[in-house]
Every structure is written in C-alpha cells, then in structure tokens.
C-alpha cells in the first residue's frame, strides 16, 4: 500500500456548529498528506459511518466542542461494528465534557466507548497527525 494516500473522515459531531477548528484540522491533515473527507459541522453518527464505508477511509476523526461530546459520541464504535467497518480507527478530540473533570477520567471513558485516541483542549494538530501515522503504520498502512 506504500505511496497511497491514507483517507480520513473529519467532522464536528452532534448539534455543534464550531466551524473554525474543523477548517484548521482539514487544512493541517491535507497538508500532512492525508486525503480528507470533510463533513463539516452538525454531523450525525450515521453520516460519519456512511462516509467511511463509501470512501473506504482508515480513520474517523470526531470533534466536539460544546460539551455534549459524551452523549453524541457514545455508540459510534458499535455502529462501526454493525456496519462492518470495525477496523476503522476512531479519534475524538475537543471540549468533550462540561465542567472541570480530570482529563484522565474523560480519556478512560472514551477509551471504554471504543475510541482509539482521545484529545483534550489545547492539543495541536501535529500531535494527532504523528499519532495517526504511527497507528496506521502499525496496521501496515504506510502513508506520506
């Protein structure tokens, strides 16, 4: 698979219209050599799944900034399994819960929900890109 661009589905989940971060991530991942299928804001779980199936993406990158992330993100892994794309990497990041919960706690919660990587506020795109390259390489998918 060497030389082939890795494909990621990107979007802001739920009733969340924070568009700025989405544009930055789209830019950063494209610049890093990924093929980005950007769904924008107000994206439902089903739309993430549909996009990943049809485009054969290796990862779904979910963003949530308005504090309802836990509610919106729960069940996405189960849907992937149901749809036959259980191999897809699930990343989530943003302002995932309201209030001052310790990040470790949030991280654990999302790991339990089946996400492969969880990022808190202040994370730079570079870190996510590096992690994704590593995770993909581990799965035998060489990319840019």
């Amino acid at each position, binding site marked *: 698979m060497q030389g082939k661009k890795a*494909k990621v589905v990107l979007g802001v989940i739920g*009733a*969340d*219209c924070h568009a700025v971060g989405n544009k930055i991530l789209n830019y950063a991942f494209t610049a890093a050599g990924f*093929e980005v*299928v950007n*769904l*924008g*804001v*107000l994206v439902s779980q089903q739309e993430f799944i*549909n*996009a990943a*199936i*049809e*485009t*054969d993406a290796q990862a779904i990158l979910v963003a949530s900034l*308005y*504090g309802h992330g836990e509610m919106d993100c729960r069940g996405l892994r189960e849907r992937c399994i149901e749809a036959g794309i259980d191999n897809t990497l699930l990343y989530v990041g943003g302002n995932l819960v309201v209030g001052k919960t310790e990040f470790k706690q949030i991280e654990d919660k999302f790991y339990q929900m089946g996400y492969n990587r969880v990022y808190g506020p202040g994370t730079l795109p570079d870190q996510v890109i590096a992690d994704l390259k590593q995770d993909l390489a581990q799965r035998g998918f060489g990319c840019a």
Partner: protein
Amino acid sequence: MRNILLIDFGSTYTKITAVDAERAEIIATASGVTTVETDITKGLKQALTDLERTTGKIRFDNVLGCSSAAGGLKMVAIGLVPELTAEAAKRAALGAGAKVLGVYCNELSEYELDEINKVGPDIVLLAGGTDGGNKQAIIHNAEKLTGLTRDIPVIVAGNKSVAPQVVKILTAKLSEVVYTENVMPALNRLDIEPARETIRQIFLHKIVQAKGLDKANCFVDQLVMPTPAAVLKAAELLSRGTDRQPGLGDLMVVDIGGATTDIYSMAEGEPQGLDILWRGLPEPFAKRTVEGDLGMRYSAASLLNVAGASRLAEAAQVSEEQVAAYAAKVEADVKYLPADELELRIEIAMGRACVKLAADRHVGTLEKYFTTTGTAWAQNGKDLTPVKTVIGTGGVIINIAQPQQIMASIIYDINMPHVLRPQKPQFLIDRRYILAAMGLLSELDADTALRIMKKYILRGEE
C-alpha cells in the same frame, strides 16, 4: 412550411402532435390506442387517420418519437450506502426517464438477485464506492449479477479504481456491459450526467428493439428517448430559455398519472438565508421524482392507504365507504372518469392527495438545531418556496374542469413550515398535452419548442 410530427407512445394511448415549425404553431393533435403487443404502428396509423381527418393530408419533414409503452424503461439501481451511491444511482435512472423497479444497497444477497430476476429490468445500473473508495461491494455485486437469468445490459458507474475488474467479471456472462463515470466520484459529489447519457444510448440502440418499438421506425426517424426524459427536457428548456429567448425561471411540473405521480423541479433550490446550512447530497438542477404508490387508477388502493381513507373522505365531504368504493371502481376500470358531482369531489380529493404527498417527498426540508450558540438551521434537499410557476400535466389534470383546485395542494403549508413547497406559484396547465412533444422538438429546434410552449402553456392559447 416545415412540418414536424411528434409521437408519444404512451402505456395506454399513442398521442401525436403535428407542428408547423416555421410559424411555431400546433397544427393538430390526435391519439390512438397503443398497440405494442401486436404492431405498434397500428395505433399510430389510427391516430394519423384521425389527425388527417381535420387537417387533410400532411407531409412531414421530421418525425420524432418518445415512448413509455411496454412498461416504460424499467431499471434497477444498485449502490453501496443507501443515502449515498444507491441514492445517486437512483437519481441517475430517474433523470434518464426510467421507472425504477428497485434500489439495492450493500452486498447483494441471493434473495435480492432472485428478486431482480423476477421483476425483470431492462437495464441494471451498478454503482458503489467513491473513486478510490470501497471496492469489495461493487465487485461482490458484479459477481452476483453474473447470475442474472436474462442477458440484460448493465451499466457500471462506480469506483473507477475497480471498474475494469467489474466490467471483466460481468462480460464473462453478459453481452452488453458499458462503463461510464462514477455517479459519485467523491463523497457527496454527484456526477449523474454520464450515466444518464449512457442509459439513453442503450435505450436507443437496444431497448427500443427488444420491446418491439422499432417497428415504428418506418414512420419515425428515431425513437429518441423515454417519455419522462422528454418531459424533463421540455421543462428544463422552459425554465432556462435559449440564447435568443428568456425562460420562465424556476418552475415545477406535476404529472398525476394512473399509476404514478411524477414531480419535476427546475431550480437550484439553494438555502434562502445565510444562517442555513445545506446538508446531504447536492441536488441536480433538473430533478425528477416518481411516486409509485401515488396514482389515480392503478395505484388507487395504495393511495388510499398512504393518504388515509378518512382524510380523503373528509376532504371530499363523503363517507369513507364511498371513497373506498370509488377507488375500487376506478382501479378496476382505469379509463373511468367521474360521472357525477360526488365522484368528482372524490377524484379531486385523490388528486390533491397525490400532489401534496408527492411534493412533500420531492422538496427539501428544514431542520432546527438548538446549539450552545443559539438556533441553527440545516436544509436537506431543495428549497422550492420561491418557485413562481407550477405546470400541471397528465390525464387527471387535463380532464378535469378545475385543475387549479388539485394543483393548489402543492402550496406551502404554514402548519408544516419545515417542508419547502412553493409559496406563491402561478398555475399553468398543459391543456393540449404537449410537454413531451416539445421535449422531442427541442432536439431539432429548441427555440421553436420554447415559443410553442410559451404560446400554448404560458398564454393558454387554444
């Protein structure tokens, strides 16, 4: 004088329109019974004799035909995700004027293949996967389709990366396999024009012959397209205009038939406010939808089911039993026309239900989101509230004295503010049933076709 004869071989009637192209006038129209089972030219000759009785002998410089006879152009559309490539494939088929017998998604099962064999489509449109996207589904489905019991044409319009492989699998068993561009090259991007054109070519070269319609060729220069495609063409021309004449702008066409209700919209349908987000698949400017469960004769029983007998009864101010009895009567005798005031009221209520329900499914909807930063709106499908013109065509509308009454049920309902139907349209009636004929004529002379439509549909000249 340049006389052109335009023929529409319908499922029941063969309708002919004689046009004087230089004067942009309709010389006469006539109809005969469609006789595709025996010899399609029989009904046509009958119509011609009828026509020449009023006009005298005419020599025609061109003869063009469209057809929905012998069941119309029947297709099956196959994609991967229901809302994505399967929907795109369905739209391509509908846009080409086909009757879509089934839409299949994901990997086909043995049962589904049996079903496809049973319904017997004329063409199968096989899509699935964006370019560079999913490969397994379309390959699996191509392998399944080699189990087709009849040798029918298959159009491959899926993931380009595996198209050659898919074509190879299919050609091992089927003689007509045509590759064309992917109906969805990238996520949420539609490219259905190449598939539509391919469907039309196959219709022209294969289907016409397979259905015995080619017997008409001694009269007709060419059977150029399925009838709904001709209507779509006429509507698009009337909306956009030509280089020399302006069109009417955004418009819709409502065609209530015995079996189906077709809605056409010629409009971009973009959101009306800056704060509205456009979601889902992009919409083609010229869009056609067909509702197989909404019709006035063959589908009267299913219409009753969908619309609700009680609601129809209330609208017609009759009892539910009377509605049911009338529906059964017209379904058994499809050529029946309302004979008294009571039947007319039921007929109108049924027509209104067809228009409203079909429009609801055709137009876009608004969805409200409550977010932390306030209310947000998302629009799915076309916003047709600003559409200024709605044209009625088809037997029911033409045969009734007050067609506006039926068509008015398309108007935006304040109680359903999220359903984006036209707010203040003017209603025009295709009294002489010329839309399909003008779609055909536009192949030869778009300016004349447009002038004739303006004269007879817009200004209502007799």
